[in-house]
């Protein structure tokens, strides 16, 4: 009888201990997550909530009164020619920069990876643009592409070609800015691809050689490309987001002149030049929605075809 009581007491103590341990674990777990959670709240979630609220008002910076507009800001955006142009420009920019930088940096990474002694030299050469300040570099590009002073047009003239105004001819502005964007992004993506290439075991190429897949195309199709799947996925998503956020080159080179507004620049104009905070908030929400849709679609489409080792 006593023995039974003793064991049941022991059981109860053990259970209490276990419960206590679980409680302590939950507490320390929360404590560990708290700093990240706080930052997430302060930096993302609260501002996002304010953004949603503001987007439904006609609030102007410094104004004393404001009223609810509901979805009117969004309706206005649909008919706004500047916003529509900035949307088209941004998509054009992304459609050049995204495939261009992924494919070019992959090609360069494969070429650089094959170098043995000169590899680090090329790594530095291609990575340098990443380390530069884009605003400062934009000024350099402005000089290089200048119709009368720049070396590019001087070269064109020497070859007997007509002078080209890269940064004022409406049809050329976005492709030119996309070219500068490519120049800046390729080095970074190349480094990511180089890391991905180094992670592919050399044995696989040896096995492929023996199995008859030793040719350059077969090696790429059977080993390199599948092996780079996770890297490509990451590079594509980050490049897409970076490209959507194009701003500084436009701000430095054209200030949106000649129909060269992009999404972020249009938001900047509305919010910080014209102080239409409510309308700018609505545009920002639309911008966020695009990035979100794009990232999720990419993740789903690519993720299914990517093999994670």
């Amino acid at each position, binding site marked *: 009888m006593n023995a039974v009581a003793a064991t049941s007491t022991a059981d109860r103590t053990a259970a209490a201990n276990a419960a206590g341990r679980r409680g302590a674990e939950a507490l320390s777990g929360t404590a560990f997550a708290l700093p990240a959670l706080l930052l997430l709240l302060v930096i993302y979630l609260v501002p996002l909530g304010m953004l949603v609220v503001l987007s439904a008002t006609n609030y102007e910076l410094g104004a004393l009164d404001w009223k609810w507009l509901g979805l009117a800001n969004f309706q206005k955006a649909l008919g706004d020619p500047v916003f529509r142009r900035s949307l088209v420009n941004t998509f054009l920019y992304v459609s050049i920069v995204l495939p261009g930088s992924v494919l070019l940096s992959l090609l360069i990474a494969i070429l650089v990876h094959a170098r043995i002694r000169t590899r680090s030299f090329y790594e530095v050469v291609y990575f340098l643009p990443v380390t530069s300040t884009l605003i400062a570099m934009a000024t350099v590009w402005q000089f290089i592409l200048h119709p009368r002073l720049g070396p590019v047009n001087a070269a064109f003239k020497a070859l007997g070609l007509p002078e080209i105004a890269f940064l004022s001819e409406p049809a050329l502005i976005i492709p030119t800015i996309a070219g500068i964007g490519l120049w800046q992004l390729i080095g970074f993506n190349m480094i990511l691809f180089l890391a991905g290439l180094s992670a592919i075991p050399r044995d696989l190429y*040896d096995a492929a050689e023996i*199995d008859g*897949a030793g040719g350059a195309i*077969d090696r790429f199709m059977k080993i390199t490309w599948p092996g780079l799947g996770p890297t490509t996925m990451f590079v594509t998503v980050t490049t897409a987001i970076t490209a959507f956020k194009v701003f500084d080159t436009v701000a430095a080179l054209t200030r949106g002149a000649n129909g060269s507004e992009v999404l972020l620049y249009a938001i900047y104009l509305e919010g910080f030049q014209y102080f239409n905070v409510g309308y700018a908030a609505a545009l920002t929400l639309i911008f966020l929605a695009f990035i979100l849709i794009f990232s999720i679609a990419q993740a789903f489409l690519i993720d299914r075809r990517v093999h994670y080792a």
Partner: protein
Amino acid sequence: MGSGVVLQGIGKAFGATRVLSDVSLDVMPGEFLSLVGPSGCGKSTLLRIIAGLETPDRGTVAIAGRHVDHLPGRERNVAMVFQSYALYPHMTVADNIAMPLTMRRLNLAERFPLIRYLSPRRLRIMREIRAEVTALASQLEIAPLLARKPAQLSGGQRQRVALARAMVRHPSVFLMDEPLSNLDARLRVQMRGELAELHRRLGATFIYVTHDQVEAMTMSSRVALMEGGRILQLGAPADLYERPASLKVAQFIGSPAINVLPVSADGSGKVSLFGRRLPLTIAGGTPATIAIRPEGLRLSASGGDAAALGARVHRVEHHGAERIVQLRLAEPSLDALVCRLSENEAAHLVVGEGAALSVTFDLARAHVFDAEGRRLSTAVAVGSTARLRA
């Protein structure tokens, strides 16, 4: 049927490091030949040269009587199994095994994404390949794994898939680069038996690289022991064990390692150990060491034989059917010796730690080497089991 592989004067250096110097080797058709040696001895490089993955600086490779130096690996009709298995991680087991066949039977357009669906014969070829892969997989007992990816397999299963990929196109030469070293001990012993059985059944030539002398000795018809980019000795496993050509071979082959003691000889070639004359004479040369396998030691109770060396038991390992006894010689040398005793032999002795024993040698099985480690021929004077003489 297997093909012969003939290597002549192979030399290879990576930068300033010489990996192989003047290696010649004649592998018989259908033979199981092991290249064994410590890491960095050049055995893997030699295998990769045969496979066409590495180009030698000097020398020629011939497979089935045909020079293949100018041919890439895929045209040499060899298959290779890698230590890491080198399975394609993004492909299913079935696709991995099918790879050598699809690469050979389908042209580039028929393997290319999208364009491949235009080929009328592609489906038929794929069906044939699938059938061959399934048949081979059930033969190797991996049929239930065909739809899995390599990451979902155990080490032993990956090993079989790698074997299947090598076997699928019936090559005449199998090259194996330490294929068992990533397996646990139990599985390694099992796979050893299966590989030997596979070799017998296929009749193909196997060239097998390993640093594990047990693998080399148990499976091979011949063993080439390599060190420093050269072949030290080539012969049947028993040859290497019983007639090592040099002290290095004697010391590498055999576990526990062979006992080595310093000896000297007088002008007439009579050999002495620690100043005691052995009933052993040398035909020529200056002996420096004598080497005796652990089973060549005879132990008896101390004091019974004045001619024997005195020793003390340092440690005893029980291995079930045998005991390995570590000894320390008494004065004057204090050398360590190791002795292999069957349980029968051990039954007649008190073999506890610290016990004093007498040691004699089975000189018929002793090897004498000169200062450079070269084998010297010997003649035993009296009987087969001679005793040390004072």
